[in-house]
């Protein structure tokens, strides 16, 4: 079927056969040919066969927001703190998301309640796809108490939960200032180096992380596991503020899928342009503008794009805007005041 007004020859947008062409019934290819055409197209899309997902698979909100932002459907972006990952997407044309592997029983759990090991299976990334960067996204305490003080999160690269020498990737001091404005939690995002990930996952296709969560006044360090008891009591007392790495009792699949740790990889398969090719950034005001310009500088946007732009204009009046946040390139700030769900 077709859309748009340019239907003079095609009749309401649906392509009609020319007088010399065979009838629609006889034009249908035989099933074998149709299958061959479909296989050819799938291979061009980088798929060996048509995926057959199980029903009811939950889509991470971050991926949905990313898609909607990319499609300029800004009013549909649900996370008010969503930031377009322009620094990752400038080079990448593929974004893949991975949920962590949930071990059965107590396997993978440590006695130390301040530490947890999570792993991701990234073996499904095709060999010919170049991993450019990645992010580990962790949701912070939905039920965090504002009275609790700051605490420190140490992120280690760890082969397994009993790895004696995990590699420290990042240490971050976390407080509850942002949480006070975000009743649904706050995503902590850890940028991961692609080279490190490639080396870590080589062979097994598995990536493991050790998360250590301690009160800021605790002096316990990871290698000395026998001396961690002091920090444990403190952490146990404040366990409600932990990162969402374990499923709550009775929590349904859908809500857990929106809260569990998410590994996002940014890669390029060697074909085509990156995801942000058509998004350019104006100098000075930091706003993102989409659309190509001709040599005379006038926008060549279609009428449909113009309608979107008009919608964007209304969205700005609604109280939120696309602009730099913290001076970071490509950061997006959705103003807290007056955000209107349209």
């Amino acid at each position, binding site marked *: 079927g077709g859309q748009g007004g340019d239907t003079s020859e095609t009749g309401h947008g649906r392509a009609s056969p020319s007088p010399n062409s065979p009838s629609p019934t006889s034009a249908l290819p035989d099933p074998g040919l149709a299958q061959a055409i479909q296989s050819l197209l799938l291979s061009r899309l980088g798929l060996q066969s*048509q995926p057959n997902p199980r029903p009811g698979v939950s889509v991470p909100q971050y991926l949905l927001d990313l898609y909607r932002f990319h499609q300029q459907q800004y009013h549909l972006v649900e996370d008010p703190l969503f930031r377009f990952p322009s620094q990752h997407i400038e080079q990448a044309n593929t974004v893949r998301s991975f949920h962590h592997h949930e071990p059965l029983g107590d396997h993978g759990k440590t006695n130390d309640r301040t530490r947890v090991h999570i792993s991701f299976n990234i073996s499904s990334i095709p060999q010919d796809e170049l991993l450019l960067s990645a992010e580990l996204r962790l949701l912070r305490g939905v039920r965090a108490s504002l009275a609790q003080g700051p605490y420190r999160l140490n992120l280690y690269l760890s082969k397994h939960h009993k790895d004696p020498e995990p590699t420290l990737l990042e240490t971050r001091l976390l407080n509850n200032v942002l949480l006070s404005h975000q009743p649904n939690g706050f995503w902590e995002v850890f940028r991961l180096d692609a080279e490190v990930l490639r080396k870590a996952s080589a062979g097994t296709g598995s990536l493991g992380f050790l998360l250590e969560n301690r009160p800021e006044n605790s002096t316990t360090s990871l290698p000395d596991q026998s001396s961690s008891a002091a920090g444990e009591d403190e952490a146990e007392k404040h366990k409600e503020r932990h990162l969402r790495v374990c499923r709550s009792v009775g929590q349904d699949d859908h809500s857990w899928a929106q809260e569990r740790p998410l590994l996002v990889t940014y890669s390029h398969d060697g074909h085509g342009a990156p995801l942000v090719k058509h998004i350019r950034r104006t100098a000075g005001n930091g706003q993102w503008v989409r659309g190509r310009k001709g040599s005379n500088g006038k926008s060549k946007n279609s009428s449909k794009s113009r309608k979107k732009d008009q919608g964007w204009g209304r969205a700005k009046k609604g109280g939120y805007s696309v602009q730099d946040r913290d001076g970071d390139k490509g950061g997006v700030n959705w103003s807290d005041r007056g955000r209107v769900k349209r």
Partner: protein
Amino acid sequence: NGGHSAKLKRLSRGRCRRHPLYVDFNDVGWHKWIIAPSGYDAFFCLGECRYPLADHMNASSHAVVQTMVNSVNGAVPRACCVPTSLSPIALLYLDHQDRVVLKNYQDMVVESCGC
């Protein structure tokens, strides 16, 4: 001169240009694994490349030569009406392991046609 105008209009209508074509993933059963979009405007090129080739028909120099030869020798076909500019679309889909992927696919939308 209504007759002349109608003839010109009819001739112009048959010229090579872009036509609407909406691809609905539901129609081909791909909605099971493509989360978004549900379909997209792909467009297609159709029409004749006959003399004279106007500027807006994006004719290549070869197309001009081929059209000229066609005018003196009918055995040589006219130039074809083909996409001269294509753009990508982003697909959000589930892969074989039920993982969500966002990918930019090149050359999926016809932006302009020419001879």
